[in-house]
């Protein structure tokens, strides 16, 4: 059985990938096998283990000493029945596989991605394209070997994602590009040149495949040819060779396809740094404590501690391995359709986050990383796959990096923030990500409040922002990350906040740009949180009795759920009130001007 792209219609592409033409398509025919891959291997293993002696006897003529299930069946003269049962089960499984593949189809229209599946219980899921939060391509090891990939369209909501598992690897990239293009709201004509060039690149790669396996699905969704027919035996050997080289190329290819992204990832993580950063995590401290505690406990005849230690060790090992494999081959680059983050060595994952889908960003530095100057970046997004606990990995955008890496990544994540002048971090950002619309009302809305804050802002920001060009003066980001406090462009907590934050009060503060809030706090574990005004859901201000005595207040920026919590707990209460109003007005103004749900349409307008 050929594992090739049977989902591909016979009609050659005309500038777009042929899977996104609004018709119903089927998935990769090997999908049931790949989905149940592990179970299949397990069942085979059990069968082989049970028949081991039988097989040994069969091949080497060693007589068996009886007692296995097959002898039993043979002795009872039930061979015919047994064969019938096996045949029946096989038939049912095959029919089930075939039907589940047959009934599982998807289509991509101008409006939505739609999937229908199920044999007895039909489900039909439709995700509106302008609500897409991200497109993720997963290539687990086994499907990857067979040249298949899983495409996941992330939509806001718990377990609301639309999964297309599995598709032919080369089609997956093309399909993602088309989904993103359709979602961006760019008109077909505008996209045609790039789309055409892009498909040409993958088209050549897919040529060998298309020749080998033209198992076609006609436009109305019925299968025209189930059996992939080859063009004669003589061509088979050559095609097989081409197929293998193509598989190898796909396997080794960089995760960022060169036609859709700048060739280089803006951050490169040396494996050594990755290992060291994982080793210097807080979990290691726990492990060391355990390693010290265990011999002491054993010396005191406290043997029960073993029962706690062994599971911890196993958990620790899997944690380290998980962190390591997820951080390997890490890439991040800006494309016309958003930031693309890829990682993974054997099983790879590659997520595209369109502009305006990042709700909050946190740059943090655990204490142990400080000597090395390393930081990690995590984000809140509305759509995440919750399965297999992989959620955690998707929220980490930069596993470990230095400050300049952080600035480059932030420039990709917040292209319109005005925090970093274009050209500092990344070179050629695709045209879609160029800041087009500075949200003017944001700047003007708070002016009617005429408060201390906006006075401070106007005094500080214009003077200090351009200075980011100057290498001598650290950028606002860098000040937010490493500054010890003081007059550094951030509005910090007053001295009396030391009652509540004895160490970090100097550093606990905020800064505002035209459309982004920066909150910084923490002196042991430093953190800088950035929230775009346009993504803020609401703003809260609270004050408890102790804060009231100290004339302090808290401000909390409510965003979608995630690892980032944007709140400041110890700022002057009048400043907190001003900040509350400013943020509220800013959120309204930016939210009204926000067009990022159709990010491509802005280019059309020009």
């Amino acid at each position: 059985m050929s594992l090739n792209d049977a989902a591909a219609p016979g009609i050659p592409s005309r500038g777009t990938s042929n899977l996104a033409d609004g018709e119903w398509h089927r998935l990769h025919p090997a999908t049931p096998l790949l989905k149940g891959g592990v179970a299949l291997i397990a069942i085979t293993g059990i069968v082989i283990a049970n028949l081991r002696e039988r097989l040994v006897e069969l091949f080497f003529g060693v007589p068996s000493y009886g007692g296995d299930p097959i002898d039993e069946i043979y002795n009872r003269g039930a061979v015919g029945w047994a064969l019938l049962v096996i045949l029946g089960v096989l038939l049912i499984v095959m029919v089930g596989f075939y039907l589940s593949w047959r009934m599982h189809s998807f289509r991509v229209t101008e409006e939505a991605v739609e999937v229908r599946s199920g044999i007895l219980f039909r489900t039909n899921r439709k995700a509106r394209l302008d609500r897409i939060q991200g497109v993720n391509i997963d290539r687990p090891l086994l499907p990857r070997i067979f040249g298949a990939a899983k495409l996941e369209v992330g939509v806001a909501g718990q377990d609301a994602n639309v999964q297309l598992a599995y598709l032919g690897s080369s089609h997956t990239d093309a399909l993602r590009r088309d989904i993103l293009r359709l979602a961006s709201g760019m008109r077909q004509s505008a996209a045609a040149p790039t789309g055409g060039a892009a498909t040409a690149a993958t088209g050549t790669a897919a040529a060998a495949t298309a020749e080998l396996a033209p198992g076609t699905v006609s436009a109305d969704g019925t299968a025209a040819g189930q059996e992939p027919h080859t063009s004669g035996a003589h061509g088979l050997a050559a095609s097989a060779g081409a197929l293998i080289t193509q598989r190898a190329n796909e396997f080794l290819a960089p995760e960022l396809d060169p036609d859709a992204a700048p060739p280089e990832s803006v951050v490169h993580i040396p494996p050594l740094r990755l290992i060291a950063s994982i080793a210097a995590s807080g979990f290691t401290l726990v492990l060391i404590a355990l390693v010290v505690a265990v011999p002491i406990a054993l010396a005191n005849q406290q043997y029960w501690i073993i029962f706690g230690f062994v599971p911890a060790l196993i958990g620790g090992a899997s944690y380290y391995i998980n962190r390591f494999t997820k951080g390997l081959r890490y890439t991040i680059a800006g494309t016309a359709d958003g930031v693309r983050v890829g990682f993974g060595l054997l099983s790879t994952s590659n997520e595209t986050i369109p502009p305006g889908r990042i709700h909050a960003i946190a740059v943090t530095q655990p204490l142990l990383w400080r000597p090395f100057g390393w930081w990690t970046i995590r984000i809140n997004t509305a759509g995440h796959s919750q399965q297999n606990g992989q959620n955690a990995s998707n929220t980490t955008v930069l596993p470990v990096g230095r400050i300049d890496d952080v600035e480059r990544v932030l420039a990709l994540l917040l292209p319109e923030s005005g925090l970093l002048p274009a050209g500092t971090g990344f070179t050629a950002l695709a045209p879609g990500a160029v800041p087009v619309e500075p949200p003017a009302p944001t700047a003007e809305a708070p002016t009617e409040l005429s408060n201390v804050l906006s006075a401070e802002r106007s005094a500080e920001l214009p003077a200090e922002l351009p200075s980011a060009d100057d290498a001598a003066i650290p950028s606002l980001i860098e000040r937010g990350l490493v500054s010890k406090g003081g007059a550094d462009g951030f509005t910090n907590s007053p001295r009396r906040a030391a009652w509540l934050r004895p160490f970090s009060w100097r550093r606990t503060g905020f800064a505002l740009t035209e459309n982004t809030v920066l909150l910084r706090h923490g002196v042991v574990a430093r953190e800088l949180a950035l929230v775009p005004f346009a993504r803020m859901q609401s703003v809260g201000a609270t004050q408890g009795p102790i804060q009231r005595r100290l004339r302090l207040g808290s401000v909390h920026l409510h965003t979608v759920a995630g690892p980032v919590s944007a709140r400041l707990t110890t700022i002057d209460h009048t400043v907190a009130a001003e900040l509350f109003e400013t943020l509220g007005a800013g959120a309204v103004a930016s939210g009204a001007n926000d067009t990022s749900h159709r990010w491509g349409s802005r280019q059309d307008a020009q």
Partner: protein
Amino acid sequence: MTHDAQDAGSRDTEHTETNNAEVREPRMHELPTSPAPEADAAQRLDLGDPAAWHRVSPKYLVVEIIGTVIGGLLFCAGAAAVWILGDQQWALWVLIGIATVFIVTLTVEPRRVRSIGYQLRADDLLFRRGIMFQRFVSVPYGRMQLVDITRSPVARALGLAELKFVTAAAATGVIIPGLPMDEAEALRDRLVALAESRRAGL
């Protein structure tokens, strides 16, 4: 409770008209600060237009009191059972302690209920509650994902309802209790209309 009766009268007017809100006497901002008005007011967070707060129905106080009393009685019954049936002397002190806490809670209850308020501003909904732990939330109308109206048995008996404004952020937590049913429905329709006219993305 003369204040409450007066308030109930003003409740009958249409809440959505800001003019009425201005006409209504601005009690909201002065009441929570009653113990030490001058010193405390300066340290207190005071957001929004003090005159524009819509308060919840004073009848909501009954709902709160009934809830507190039921809770208090349950706890007291537990302690009393230990004291009488279990013949444990210390349980008497626990009983007294619990009773004191709940009685104090009951005395603060009117102020807590009066501290709940909301304002419909030009572009956002401003919500507040709490005296000791003050909480203000500002939600742009366009961020609305859905509006829930729920009614507990006691509130239903009093003709009250609870309105919940849900955004994509779980932390928003804007729940306006103690609205008269027709007012809750009017407010819901108003909020939906406002959200529709100011639709924003996620």
